[in-house]
């Protein structure tokens, strides 16, 4: 009898444990963020969500950027896949949607989605269906070092068109200053030049025509011209010695160390350069300047057109509904305001930009608000197979091993082969 009682108790305990375990839902959240300060806030947000939602556990997982991109197809087809994954939208997102590995969350975000910047939400929408939530915007432009610019008597505010930039490079070289630092080994920092020139020369219309294969596609005039202008710059040898061997974090650190006058970078580098500088202090706000990518004479793009990223989060097929619920909480005005106040993001929730307290971040937010055409990075929007060719050929133009015409043709060939 005593034995039976014990057994019964044990069985009851097992049942209780099992039902408790069943009530728990774990949301696995895979991210690629390397900034510890930002990850810390994310952790706090996750714990806060758990506290207000008993039975839900948010588990953070991390993969380094390149490793993440490489493993993504395998991860998504695994049974043990994470529920929330990072995304740059664009071609990769399109491929994922076509393969059916993502959840359509349109109905779950109905009503809520009105609070988001329309352009940012559009990047995660396909055929009227929403597949993810945006989290941040960024702009590509020139960060500059006030002291070094002054040394060469170059006024950053005066760099308005491409010729101004070339003249500035010449003046900086003459003054014995390295004009521009770039992480050429990663290739994508070099593609900013080519892409932004194409945005300035052809505007939105040229890009969309090229996508449809019209006007010679990416072998057309706009893209050849972009290569030619980029070559003009390359011929002045504006970059630091050995730039093709520099990885991006190294280059950002180099700028933070005050060794070069300019860098064409994503707006987030404004803050990142401090963490990556040798002294971990980098350039203070009063030493750093910014100017938008110069316009090109006769270009069809508007000076307010911007190049940059639209990043966000996706939920994978078969995820618990709590995953979307957590995302909505993560991309809420409250959390976005907090991240904006920390200068980590240009928020996508309307009204959250009130949190921005730094004049630089406010400037970028204003630029993005003015922009009628925000082009997502080509290497993301064109998908991995074509986008990476863009990166390759721009690095080859910079290294002198490919002509602008060959480069344009190579991209068009990749587009035709496609995936």
């Amino acid at each position, binding site marked *: 009898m005593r034995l039976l009682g014990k057994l019964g108790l044990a069985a009851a305990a097992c049942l209780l444990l099992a039902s408790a375990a069943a009530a728990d839902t774990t949301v696995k959240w895979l991210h690629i963020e390397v900034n510890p300060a930002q990850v810390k806030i994310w952790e706090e947000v996750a714990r806060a969500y758990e506290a207000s939602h008993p039975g839900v556990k948010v588990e953070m997982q991390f993969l380094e950027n*390149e490793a993440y991109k490489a493993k993504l*197809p395998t991860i998504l087809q695994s049974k043990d896949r994470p529920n929330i994954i990072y995304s740059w939208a664009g071609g990769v997102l399109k491929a994922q949607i*076509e393969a059916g590995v993502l959840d359509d969350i349109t109905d779950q975000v109905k009503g809520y989605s009105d609070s988001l910047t329309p352009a940012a939400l559009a990047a995660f929408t396909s055929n009227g269906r929403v597949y993810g939530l945006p989290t941040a915007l960024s702009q590509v432009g020139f960060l500059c070092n006030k002291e070094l610019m002054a040394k060469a008597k170059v006024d950053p505010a005066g760099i308005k068109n491409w010729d101004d930039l070339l003249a500035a490079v010449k003046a900086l070289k003459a003054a014995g200053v390295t004009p521009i630092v770039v992480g*050429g080994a990663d290739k994508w920092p070099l593609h900013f030049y080519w892409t932004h020139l194409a945005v300035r020369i052809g505007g939105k219309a040229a890009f969309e025509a090229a996508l449809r294969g019209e006007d010679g596609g990416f072998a057309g005039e706009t893209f050849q011209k972009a290569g030619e202008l980029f070559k003009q710059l390359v011929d002045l040898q504006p970059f630091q010695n050995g730039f093709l*061997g520099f990885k991006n974090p190294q280059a950002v650190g180099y700028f933070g160390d005050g060794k070069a006058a300019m860098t064409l970078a994503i707006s987030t580098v404004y803050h990142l350069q401090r963490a990556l500088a040798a002294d971990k202090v980098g350039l203070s706000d009063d030493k750093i300047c910014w100017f938008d990518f110069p316009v090109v004479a006769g270009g069809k793009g508007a000076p307010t057109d911007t190049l940059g990223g639209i990043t966000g989060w996706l939920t994978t097929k078969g995820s618990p509904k709590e995953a979307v619920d957590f995302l909505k909480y993560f991309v809420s005005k409250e959390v976005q305001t907090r991240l904006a106040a920390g200068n980590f993001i240009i928020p996508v929730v309307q009204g959250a930009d009130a949190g921005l307290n730094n004049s630089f971040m406010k400037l970028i937010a204003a630029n993005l608000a003015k922009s009628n055409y925000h082009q997502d990075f080509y290497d993301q929007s064109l998908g*991995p*197979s074509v986008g*990476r060719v863009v990166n390759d050929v721009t*690095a080859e133009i910079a290294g002198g091993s*490919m002509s602008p015409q060959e480069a344009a043709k190579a991209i068009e060939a990749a587009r035709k082969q496609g995936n």
Partner: protein
Amino acid sequence: MARPVANVSAMGVAKTSFSPLAVRGPSWDGRFTVLILFLPPALLLFTLFVVLPIGEAAWYSGFNWNGFGKPTNWIGFDNYRFVLETRAFWLALRNNGLIIAVSLAVQLPLALTLALMLAERFRGAVALRMLFFMPYILAEIATGLIFSFVYDGDYGLVASIWRSFGAEPPHLLASTDTAMLAVLIVVVWKYFGFHMMLFIAALQGLDKSLIEAARIDGATRSQALRHVVIPLLYPTIRLSVFFAIVGSLQLFDLVMPLTRGGPADSSNTMVSFLYNNGISRMRVGYGSAIGVILFAICVTFAFTYKRWFMRDE
């Protein structure tokens, strides 16, 4: 030809386990039982982990596929055509050829010379052997990282040497002219110790009486070396050459941390080319085609070599 009596190299082991002529089983019945017992598990594992993946790669190579979902877009042999039309592929092939050439022309002679010096017993011989063997123990990825710092044109060892001569240091890994050379130097540094160890093992297993006999017959040291020792080492040399070539064809994990195949594909090997295209670009079909081509090259080489040079091993 003369064979060392107690050959302790891997070759000796291989001989006893694979050559049916070398091992005479007690009887056909006994061997049959062994076959029934031991063949199925081995065959199963081989099929699962070797034959199937290769077959799968060959199957994928016929598709234009990005790795998501099931491949559906069959394009036949187009991927192979695309690969062969790519300049970077031929560059990668050339680089593999360069690595083989340097391995054979620099690495093996260096290893042999050192082995001849260190096989004898003298004070510090063991310490020196370990010293030369050390690079081989180091993980490839770590080696690559270490050398990317050594080669750094701003802070690296190479840069400070250059500066001590008052010259502006080069960025070896950032130039299409020097990146491959820099990789080759690391390859030689990393693997010569391994070949040296093979040679030392073989040298220590040599029948000393043959050398003594030669010396008594009046051969000088160098004549004994040329006509007795080196010929006795041939089996090991052939094995070393085999390892060097197959290893060269598969080189990957040194290249990635050093240059990732760049700049402008100048230091790609076939495997880094495969990785950069098949994985980074998610062109799984295209990458599979490269893999199949590489596999074909390796298999052709392995069988030809075995047939021509290692027939009686």
